[in-house]
């Protein structure tokens, strides 16, 4: 990734131009042509630096309830438990972390009933009894880290 890529990433973390030819608008600001902007974004997709490009919705404004949950899984059961958790489309993020509990995941469900159902199924399928549940109370920040120059 070079400086030009970083400049593009920087632009993509701000306000995406809602205009007919958004990549031309980005290119104009960075002294690049539209095709170069698009091909550099494509390359960053391929390398894995960019995971997604598009809108991020506010789940609460759409009537969904979100929470963070954690399970303390024995090392030899992490893969099996993660496979069960990852099977739910309502679970969008799942991370293995050092410490206890070690599996941390987010659940976004259209209702509390559905959320409880998911937890009940995970308990049943994995045999794990304790799932720590952390409902969000107040959001102070969700924003991507700005790219830093090395």
């Amino acid at each position, binding site marked *: 990734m070079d400086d030009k890529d970083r400049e593009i990433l920087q632009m*993509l*973390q701000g306000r995406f131009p809602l205009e007919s030819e958004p990549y031309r608008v980005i290119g104009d600001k960075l002294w690049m042509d539209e095709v170069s902007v698009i091909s550099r974004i494509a390359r960053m997709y391929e390398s*894995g*630096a960019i995971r997604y490009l598009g809108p*991020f919705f506010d789940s609460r404004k759409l009537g969904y309830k979100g929470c963070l949950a954690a399970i303390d899984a024995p090392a030899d059961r992490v893969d099996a438990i993660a496979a069960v958790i990852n099977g739910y489309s309502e679970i969008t993020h799942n991370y293995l972390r050092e410490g206890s509990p070690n599996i941390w995941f987010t659940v976004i469900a259209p209702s509390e009933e559905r959320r409880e159902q998911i937890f009940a199924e995970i308990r049943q399928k994995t045999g794990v009894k304790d799932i720590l549940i952390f409902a969000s109370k107040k959001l102070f920040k*969700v924003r991507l880290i700005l790219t830093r120059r090395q």
Partner: protein
Amino acid sequence: MDSKTRQILCELQDGFKLETRPFKRIANKVGCTEEEVIEIISKCRDDGIIRRIGAAIRPEQIGHAANALVAWDVSEENVDEIGTALAELREISHCYERECPPGWNYNLFTMIHARSEEELRNIVAGISERFKFNGFKIFRTEKELKKTSMRYFEEAQP
């Protein structure tokens, strides 16, 4: 939300295709003009239904080698002040106050991103000296097991 808005958001929810006129494609698919699509998306962004339009980046791919969830034990009367201050820090991408299960006192959750283990330690140390905490816990990211974007809209049945 009207059905046209819903249709447009449904088309958008998997992200943009990489092409010169992404909104034109959606307009063709939904059966309205490109201007209308842009206007409706702008309105959703103004209303806050869309909180941001842009890229999601994998932190480890852009030089953030040390990432951690750090949960802080903050007393009720300080949580607003500290949460607001932590949200200002560029190394922090997520900051939430959360309800906690019995026996768990770490109520302020932050995601911290650093380029090295040493930098991570310094950031955490800096924060812990600056504010009044009863304690904190670090959960370093070992491995991403799943990361996707939520699909909120279902395709209309044919």
